[in-house]
């Protein structure tokens, strides 16, 4: 049947069916990825188009509002600082261009490391069993209860300033537990399945079975787990920054909020100072949530019918 002589409803249904042919192309996944990519886009394009020296303290007038608004002193926003300046005379746009990708970077790096540890430990536990399994399982159970924020608060207040990479490494020490548990459970159930036993019987090596036979089936779970740990990592990083414990000399979204609260930006009605980083963080988290919901639909077809 050609598309021309279908009714509108039929066309819509056909489109929906086609969409479900490839579960990876569901709208939630696309929207979520789009939101995150737009943050990265701001970070990349901004570096070429905007003067990043404006990020230094005192490089701009203090507390200017965004374009089209007036601050309490009656100053209007100016083109030179389209989204305003903060209480230390820094241009908000320059801070965002540098700070927003930093926040994503910490989340991605921490979860990449955490996931690698999780994949390694989860496979080892599920596949090898015995003592190794016991040790890893108890280790993951123990570590999953400890809130990362509090350990890191102790760490960073003892060591003072940290770099972004250092913070990501520290957070990575707390995001390997859930992937480990998830992968272990999946591996345990997969080990019983026909194709794995077939591979074993035909003399395939352990690594071949792990990475060639089992890994592809785990991909949706791995992605889901990865996104969840990116969220946890960013929440933890922002938490540390808002307590004033993140990197001190590099702009991050959390640190901007910290400075705004400390300067009483809420009472002084400097909403753009804390509001813009809050908004961007919101965009990041909503993007991550949408990706996660989209991935759920990929790995759990029962959910697809409802949306």
């Amino acid at each position, binding site marked *: 049947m050609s598309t021309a002589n279908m009714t509108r409803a039929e066309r819509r249904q056909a489109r929906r069916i086609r969409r479900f042919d490839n579960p990876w192309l569901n709208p939630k996944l696309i929207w979520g990825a789009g939101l995150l990519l737009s943050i990265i886009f701001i970070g990349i394009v901004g570096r070429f188009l905007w003067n990043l020296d404006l990020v230094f303290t005192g490089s701009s007038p203090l507390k200017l509002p965004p374009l089209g608004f007036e601050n309490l002193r009656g100053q209007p926003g100016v083109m030179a600082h389209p989204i305003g300046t903060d209480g230390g005379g820094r241009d908000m746009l320059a801070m965002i261009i540098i700070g927003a990708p930093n926040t994503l970077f910490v989340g991605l790096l921490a979860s990449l490391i955490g996931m690698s540890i999780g994949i390694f430990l989860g496979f080892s536990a599920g596949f090898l069993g015995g003592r190794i399994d016991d040790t890893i399982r108890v280790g993951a159970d123990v570590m999953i209860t*400890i809130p990362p924020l*509090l350990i890191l608060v*102790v760490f960073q207040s*003892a060591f003072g300033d940290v770099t972004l990479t250092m913070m990501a490494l520290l957070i990575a020490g707390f995001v390997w537990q859930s992937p480990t548990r998830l992968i272990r459970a999946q591996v345990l159930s997969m080990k019983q399945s026909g194709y794995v036993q077939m591979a074993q019987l035909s003399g395939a090596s352990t690594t071949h079975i792990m990475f060639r036979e089992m890994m592809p089936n785990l991909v949706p779970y791995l992605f889901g787990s990865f996104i969840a740990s990116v969220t946890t990592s960013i929440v933890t990083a922002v938490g540390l920054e*808002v*307590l004033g414990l993140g990197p001190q000399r590099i702009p991050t979204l959390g640190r901007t909020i910290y400075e705004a609260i400390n300067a009483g930006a809420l009472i002084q009605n400097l909403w753009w100072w804390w509001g813009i980083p809050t908004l961007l963080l919101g965009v990041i988290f909503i993007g991550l949530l949408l990706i996660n919901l989209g991935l759920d639909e990929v790995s759990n077809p029962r959910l697809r019918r409802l949306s």
Partner: protein
Amino acid sequence: MGRIPRDYLVNRLVTLVLTVLIAATIIWIIPRLSPVDPAEIALGRMAAGAGSVANSEEILAQLRANMGIDQPLIVQYLKYISGALVFDFGLSTAAFPTPVSTLILNALPWTMGLMILSLLITFFIGNLLGALMVWDRSPKLVKVAIPAAMVFTSIPPILSGLLLMWIFAAKLQWFPLTGAYSIFVEPGWTWEFVKSVLHHGFLPALSIVVVTFGFWALGMRGLMIGVQGEDYVKLAEAKGLRPRYILYRYMIRNAILPQITAFALKIGLLIAGQVLVERIFAYNGMGKLLYDAILNQDFPVIQGVSYVIILITALSVFLVDLLYPFIDPRIRHEANA
């Protein structure tokens, strides 16, 4: 508690003890790896207060002896662990000589009160909404509005807190900006005081509720989809039971149980999130205590607060694990679970 097999109990207990012990050890080791000397910080504070300090060498030695950091590490560690068992973390260095445990005892009721209140509200609302999203008789509005509203629930409570604070405290001035009660009322069990506490607690609690109910709603939605197709629901419908009765007694009752385990896993993140909310609202709880301690480099307090919060988290997970089979009789404890 005769129904809990001994193996399972031992297993959970070992996990609990290990969790607390490992966390306490990490908290203890970290400051000792740092190049910062707490005695020098204390001396620096003295010097800042007095202008100059004579005999600084002797004072340093005395401070080290007072803090117990001149002893061998193993002695220090054993002392610390045995102290932590009875919640003795020494004296606060910023609010010297108040014991850390006193500071924590003063802050804890505020944190626990806020947490229990907001948890109960979000658990109730979240699960109900999640169930309604799947139920085929719920109004259209529910099915459209809730998923839309839920997008915002991926946001950590600190961001919603800032937003609510700006709208309702700074702009509209319906609620106070900071604090846990008004400075004009005398603390005590008077109606005035309770009213003030509720008035101050509303926004912090709300900022937690608006961003956490989505977690429960999402989980509940997934579970309800599973329950929907079950034979006993079909049977109940065939028997002609009222739909509302089926929803509450057949579907929600069966779907809600795994949510309780999710609760245990989530609690650590919830507490950490609440600490941050307390910090921005300058609420008199553990969050503010922790933040002030960070500002003053008050290590005993930082350690004490972190330890107590980790302990609360580990204990709640332990309790949920133990209570679970009583709530859901279908689950049998397995020694290796």
